[in-house]
């Protein structure tokens, strides 16, 4: 059953990503001011959605892990933490490409951009900690994720005091016609892709943990040096 869902989500993501360029270039209307440059939107915005989704999942799973101390929640947190870095990298590379066309600059120290960058950096720190923290760093990583998630609204308010020139949240709900269809295909493909990555990464984490457990056991009973 799990396998079927996994394969179905994978197939959906593949179809979605194959269809997306066709819709982006031939079906979606040209934006009135940016023309062709606006089209990166269909890749940028879903990636940002997935980034925030995985921040939320990572924070939630970390809190669950600290309360229940069940390693399966740690696997979920580790997987989601990695995905924040991945989708954040997509957001932070596609954004400046658009920014160069729209604002004439790759990067501006704007509220929305700074928030995303700081949030991404918290989770890069999280990934570094998981790689190089050594044994016993799960708890520490969970603490960092918890503090990081608590940081999200603060970072948001701290930099929102500055003026923003980033397009607002009202862009997505107000999409019309083929633009809306194209966006939904993109968001759907990204979501399916996100889910299979998350599931695969959780399974990988679990296998690694079990392997370590079995190795410890083997050393204990003298079958492994």
């Amino acid at each position, binding site marked *: 059953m799990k396998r079927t869902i996994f394969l179905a989500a994978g197939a959906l993501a593949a179809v979605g990503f194959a269809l997306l360029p066709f819709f982006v270039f031939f079906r979606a209307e040209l934006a009135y001011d940016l023309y062709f440059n606006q089209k990166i939107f269909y890749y940028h915005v879903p990636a940002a959605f997935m980034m925030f989704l995985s921040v939320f999942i990572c924070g939630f799973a970390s809190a669950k892990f*600290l*309360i229940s*101390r069940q390693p399966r929640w740690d696997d979920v947190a580790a997987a989601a933490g990695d995905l924040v870095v991945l989708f954040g990298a997509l957001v932070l590379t596609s954004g400046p490409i658009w920014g160069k066309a729209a604002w004439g600059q790759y990067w501006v120290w704007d509220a929305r951009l700074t928030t995303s960058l*700081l949030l991404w*950096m*918290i989770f890069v*720190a*999280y990934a*570094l*900690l998981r790689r*190089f*923290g*050594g044994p*016993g*760093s799960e*708890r*520490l990583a*969970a*603490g*960092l994720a*918890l*503090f*990081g998630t*608590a*940081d999200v609204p*603060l*970072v948001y*308010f*701290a*930099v929102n*005091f500055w003026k923003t020139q980033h397009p607002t949240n009202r862009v997505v709900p107000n999409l019309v016609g083929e633009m809306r269809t194209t966006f939904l295909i993109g968001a759907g493909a990204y979501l399916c892709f996100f889910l299979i990555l998350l599931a695969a990464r959780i399974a990988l984490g679990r296998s690694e943990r079990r392997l370590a457990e079995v190795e410890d056991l083997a050393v204990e009973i003298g079958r492994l040096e």
Partner: protein
Amino acid sequence: MYHHRRMGFVRAAALVAAKDLRVELRTREVVYTMTFFAALLMVLFSFAFSQGGQVLPEAAGGILWAAVAFSGTLGLARAFEREREGDTMRGLLLSPADRGAIFLGKAAGLCVYMLIVEAVAVPLVAILFGAPVLERPLELAALLILATIGFAVVGSVFAAMLLRTRSRETLLPVILYPIVLPALIAGVKGTAALWQGSRALPQAHFWLLFLLVFDAIFLAVALWAFESLVVE
């Protein structure tokens, strides 16, 4: 069941802080090093931000806060390294005192170290960069104290957790700065607003309030999480 008299929360925290301060008073190692490092950083930054022998006035606040943050990390690492060298962290955690109180005591000790450094650093920015530190002394002190509390609280949690980790020297700043960055932003922006004269005062008050919220949130998260985060 044993019924030992539980030490009061505040008393336990005060004892831990007093212990740290007594150790420091005997050696003066951390505060001297931190203060010199802060002064050193200011000189380094003056090269980065000077133009024709003059440092840009907007840069002074940023230099002050960078010096505070960097020297704070130095003190933080050292204060916890002492516990590791003497293997005294285990003793502290095994004592009947509440773990939250131990954590608060360590954070309070660090706060005092940092405030001493700031008491030297603020006159230095005035002398070296001509910053108008006497313009709004109370608000500036409030900004520094609130940001220092936030820094010490978050820092103490991570330093305590990192004690048993292999690469703690490199990991501490890497995980600490992204988390305390909102407090540092508030400090820099608030100081800049203070030094702009009275028309920017509402902004400075906004940042003071922001720091208060930052401290409250992270104090709550730290007290809630410290128990389960630090296990020996």
